[in-house]
């Protein structure tokens, strides 16, 4: 989108760099300050209010585990994030390349994929609150 709206290359790369640096800063913070210990970060409003885990619960702890190369620990906290993380990184690199070369996105995300993501996120939210599945899916 940013590419199509034109501008110089540096202008196109600005949001890419901002997102990349933001992700890097957040990852560094999570590597230094462990979210496994309570009190360092605000807790998820969903779980604080309802007692139910949302699909994002455990993401900070999973990121912290990943910075220590503890894949199993990350998986225990939020398997959905562990599965999504490589795609997020790849998507960022694809975005950076598009912005750098000035080629527009060939097509928008197909509708079925967006619907699928919604279904996966909502389904994951429900399933990780099912007591029988909690050992595998709950943070």
């Amino acid at each position, binding site marked *: 989108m940013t590419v199509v709206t034109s501008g110089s290359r540096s202008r196109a790369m600005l949001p890419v760099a901002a997102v990349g640096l933001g992700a890097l800063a957040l990852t560094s913070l999570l590597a230094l300050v462990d979210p496994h210990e309570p009190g360092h970060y605000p807790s998820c409003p*969903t779980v*604080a209010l309802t007692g139910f885990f949302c699909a994002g*619960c455990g993401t900070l702890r999973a990121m912290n585990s990943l910075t220590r190369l503890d894949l199993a620990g990350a998986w225990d906290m939020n398997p959905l994030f562990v599965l999504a993380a490589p795609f997020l990184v790849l998507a960022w690199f694809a975005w950076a390349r598009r912005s750098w070369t000035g080629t527009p996105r060939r097509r928008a995300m197909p509708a079925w994929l967006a619907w699928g993501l919604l279904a996966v996120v909502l389904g994951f939210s429900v399933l990780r609150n099912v007591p029988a599945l909690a050992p595998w899916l709950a943070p």
Partner: protein
Amino acid sequence: MSSPQDPFAPPGDGEQQPPSYGSQPPTYGAQPPAYGSQPPPYGSQPPAYGSQPPAYGSQPPAYGSQPPAYGQQPYGQAYYAPSYPKNGLAVWSLVLAVLSFMCFGPLSSIPGAILGHLALKANAQGLADNRGLALAGTIVSWVSLVLSILGGILFFATGAFDEFMTGFEAGMAG
């Protein structure tokens, strides 16, 4: 980083963007000559005014054949250039709507709803062809936002906020 690139970037983009618009510039480029060649016809038209009304009679079939031509262009261009430049709005709307269920709440459902409405407008203007996706993003964002507001009211009304803060402070102290 960005300032050293600036001198080089504009020419590079200047060369690369016309291809990115793909087949549109040629058509735009072809139109001005068409307009340029029309004035001479206008000059020769006054004598032809008498013969134009029958020409108007023959135009409706011409209009009838144009819509299929417009209909074909988007499909042909879809693989090379974004003929629907605002399709991204609906996608982002639904992505933000999904994210709003992952701890982000109104931080992502409010922009999601705004983008959803912009996407619906773009669809109405023919700048996008994914009205279903735009509708989904708008509705899911609004549902999420209403849930957040209800949750927020409950959060403060039930004293969960105090509980949350004491837990937070206990964690900070410990």
